[in-house]
């Protein structure tokens, strides 16, 4: 076992770890936001919105994340330079980076799974609670805001924690679109130093550690939210 490479490569490793965490945070927060709309659309009464949301979830849950990422990066991303004016605009420095497309793909994918979970959770909220809310004169929007969604999120919380862990483990594929995340850093170190196992061991430890932190954080969150069963 040779770990002498850690010190010379520390910047690359830390930067990679930062990018992994950044991608996780972006995709989970934005994806969750999107998932709320998807879930509401799916339990709502508007058939167009319902079918659009269902179609979205089916498509993104039914195709491999790697293919989605490449479709977005090599497909969409290749046509962007031909949009007039875009290449000279202030957006281009962001749009030319793999990080943007990686975050986009991960977000869209996470939203699809989370949207389905949240839909199930919304249907699992006891009817009586919603009827009680209506009985005290709450408007549908207020019921959604104060009763239906908060209750659904509480119900979905344990599954949500699992999804975040799965999302963490999905992030290494972003290396295939030039994002130097933690796995990318390990790949480069393996290539440079010709060591096969040691860099992989280090990132394994990191992923396990991060997973532990995520599950602990959600445990705390679950305990903090008052429930009465």
């Amino acid at each position, binding site marked *: 076992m040779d770990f002498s490479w850690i010190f010379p490569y520390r910047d690359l490793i830390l930067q990679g770890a930062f990018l992994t965490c950044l991608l996780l945070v972006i995709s989970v927060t934005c994806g969750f936001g999107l998932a709320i709309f998807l879930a509401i659309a799916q339990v709502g009464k508007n058939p167009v919105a319902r079918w659009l949301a269902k179609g979205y979830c089916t498509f993104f849950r039914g195709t491999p994340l790697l293919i989605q990422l490449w479709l977005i990066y*090599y497909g969409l*991303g*290749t046509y*962007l*330079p031909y949009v007039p004016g875009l*290449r000279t605009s202030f957006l281009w420095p962001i749009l*030319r*980076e*793999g990080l943007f497309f990686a975050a986009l793909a991960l977000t869209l994918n996470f939203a699809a799974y989370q949207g389905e979970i949240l839909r199930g959770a919304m249907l699992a909220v006891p009817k009586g609670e919603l009827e009680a809310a209506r009985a005290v004169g709450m408007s549908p929007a207020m019921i959604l805001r104060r009763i239906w969604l908060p209750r659904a999120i509480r119900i979905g919380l344990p599954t949500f924690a699992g999804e975040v862990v799965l999302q963490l483990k999905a992030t290494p594929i972003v*290396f*295939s679109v*030039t994002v*130097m995340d933690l796995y*990318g850093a390990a*790949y*480069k170190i*393996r*290539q*440079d*130093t*010709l060591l*096969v196992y040691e860099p992989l061991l280090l990132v394994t430890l990191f992923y396990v550690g991060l997973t532990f932190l995520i599950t602990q954080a959600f445990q705390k969150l679950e305990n903090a939210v008052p429930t009465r069963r």
Partner: protein
Amino acid sequence: MKHLGKALAIGMFMMAANAHADIRFGIVNEAYPPYTTKDASGKAIGWEIDLMDAVCEELKEKCTIVDVAWDGLIPALESKKIDVIWSSMSITDERKKRIDFTEKYYSALAGMIGPKDGAMGVTAKELKDKTVGIAVSTTQSAYFKKHFADVASEKSYATVDESFQDLASGRIDYVFADTGPLKEFLKTDLGEECCEYKGNVEPDDTILGAGVGGGVRKGDDALRERLNAAIKAVRDSGKYAEFSKKYFDYDPY
């Protein structure tokens, strides 16, 4: 007597195995034209394959090709899945710690291609604030770190092929690689349309000077010396120049 017979049988078996054992050449399964690539039926072709055939003819050995991913070549050699790395691997000090190399069989000239905008030259002046695509852990990557890291930024790719795609779509400003694959890319429709050759970088013999050689296991001197002799014979007989003409307009040695 019985033991002698047994020993003899084993000895003969080993000799037989030795005489018929193919030399296994490990070649990357990622396309790296014009050196190694695959035709439509999956057969390996390219300059390095022609050289391998010539060398094996010289050695009077049967050679087989084993497909290995680029990052798996050295582990495959060490675990005896292959006997020779024959895959445009530059001779570097870092690699010499793990494996031995034959004498070089070609010199990799390093150059850059970029979008067709007429701006020529690849010195620190032209590269200022640009993004350069480089395949991960190549000699070019080491060169970049030494000469350009403070003016330009590096983007790492798993294979040089992927960087071409990003160059064409404007995500990077240059691709820095061996001239062979670069010129091959410029011959394709996509390459012809988008990009042009910007020039070779200033030579730096400490990084780029050693050339490309075949890799063998540490201490496998017998094979290494036979390969050296065969490479020299192929060069001396004019065969080297002959098949090189099919691929290059210069002498790759």
